[in-house]
């Protein structure tokens, strides 16, 4: 008998994860009975599902209620995508808080200046992780997860097993040549790079381009560095115990040992945005704090 699967999307999603699931829909049909997935099937109720896949970060009271309902059903829950696992891009809201962000987006940046208040779910204070609300068996990170890794994940879900993730960094699988020694005296953000000046077969970090490879889990076969883009860190930290920003900071500061400190200060002004782009709510400090000035 096939297990009954429910795919639940929370409010902060962009649609990327669902698109990936759409690509592998035949595999889903083969392994499961899809009972609830607003994107693919027409049904309103997930209460008879045997297993859950949750997508997206927890942002509103409604999300909390949904997760509460899932928890009461006492069925295995899997998280799909970096948002569900680590908070993802919406997690950057935590630098301001959701209330402030809603006001900024709807009031200050629209012509009408109206903040929607009726029939919309109330935002939480900060973006939260699915794992803080329900017990998550295991997860697959990625923004979105790679299509060729998803069938393996779905099989683990069907069997009720843990999906085993590699504890290696993107650098470990990155084919670009590493000389192991860096003499760089500059920092380049990717928008400042002159493509003709860079040796695209050599490690980008060793040439001064900020790359999150050393702090990011290798579930992607280093697609970006091979295509002339530095790693942005979308797979989250290398292991559960690590803080992505702290390990990136450690590795990158060591490479920059010959770079002038003033330049570092200038270029790394948005340190949180660079180092925690995908994992802020799961980091050690989590969100902004109120301190005396």
């Amino acid at each position, binding site marked *: 008998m096939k297990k009954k699967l429910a795919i639940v999307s929370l409010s902060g999603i962009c649609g990327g994860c669902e698109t990936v699931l759409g690509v592998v829909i035949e595999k889903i049909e083969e392994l499961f009975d899809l009972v609830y997935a607003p994107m693919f099937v027409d049904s309103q109720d997930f209460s008879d599902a045997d297993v859950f896949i949750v997508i997206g970060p927890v942002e509103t009271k409604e999300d909390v209620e949904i997760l509460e309902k899932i928890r009461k059903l006492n069925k295995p829950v899997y998280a799909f995508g970096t948002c569900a696992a680590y908070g993802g891009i919406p997690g950057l809201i935590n*630098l301001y808080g959701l209330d402030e962000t809603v006001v900024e987006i709807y009031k200050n940046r629209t012509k009408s200046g109206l903040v929607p208040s009726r029939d919309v779910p109330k935002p939480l204070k900060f973006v939260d992780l699915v794992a803080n609300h329900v017990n998550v068996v295991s997860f697959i990170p990625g923004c979105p997860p790679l299509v060729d890794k998803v069938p393996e994940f779905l099989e683990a879900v069907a069997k009720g097993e843990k999906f085993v993730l590699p504890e290696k960094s993107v650098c470990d699988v990155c084919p670009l040549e590493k000389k192991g020694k860096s003499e760089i005296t500059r920092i380049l953000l990717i928008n400042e790079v002159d493509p003709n000046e860079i040796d695209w077969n050599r490690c980008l970090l060793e040439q001064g381009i900020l790359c999150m490879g050393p702090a990011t889990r290798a579930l992607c076969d280093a697609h970006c560095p091979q295509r002339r883009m530095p790693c942005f860190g979308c797979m989250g930290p290398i292991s559960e115990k690590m803080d992505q920003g702290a390990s990136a900071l*450690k590795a990158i500061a060591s490479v920059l040992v010959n770079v002038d400190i003033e330049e570092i*200060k200038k270029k*790394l*002004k948005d340190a949180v945005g660079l180092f925690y782009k995908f994992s802020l709510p799961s980091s050690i*400090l989590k969100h902004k704090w109120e*301190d*005396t000035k």
Partner: protein
Amino acid sequence: MSKSEQFEPRIIAFCCNWCGYAGADLAGASGYRYPANIVIIRVMCSGRVDPMFILRAFQFGADGVMVIGCHPGDCHYGKGNFFTLRRVKILKRLLEQFGINPKRLRLEWVSAAEGEKFARVVNEFVNEIKKLGPSPLKKR
């Protein structure tokens, strides 16, 4: 004012074995006084201090964190303290973005012969943290 006088901060100091820690030793041996708010953790080199150690210290309620290493160029292992310098500079910016006062993190160079300087910087730091008040991460 009276409130900040009552407040006794908890401060973690990572001291490198060869200079900072030896400096602390000398400060004790030569009878310089420094406050008991500071908890010293000995590491082999200031370059051993992972940024995560510092973030964890704040997470578990430290009001301030000090990193004390050898003077630039004097590191026992060559370049350790140059790494530390850059890490701390970036970390300070990170803390600022998180809304935590970057003054709560301080890097100092103290050599093995500077017992007096050790006592002085610790005193200074404790007074500064007392003025800043408890860390916002502290569980109340």
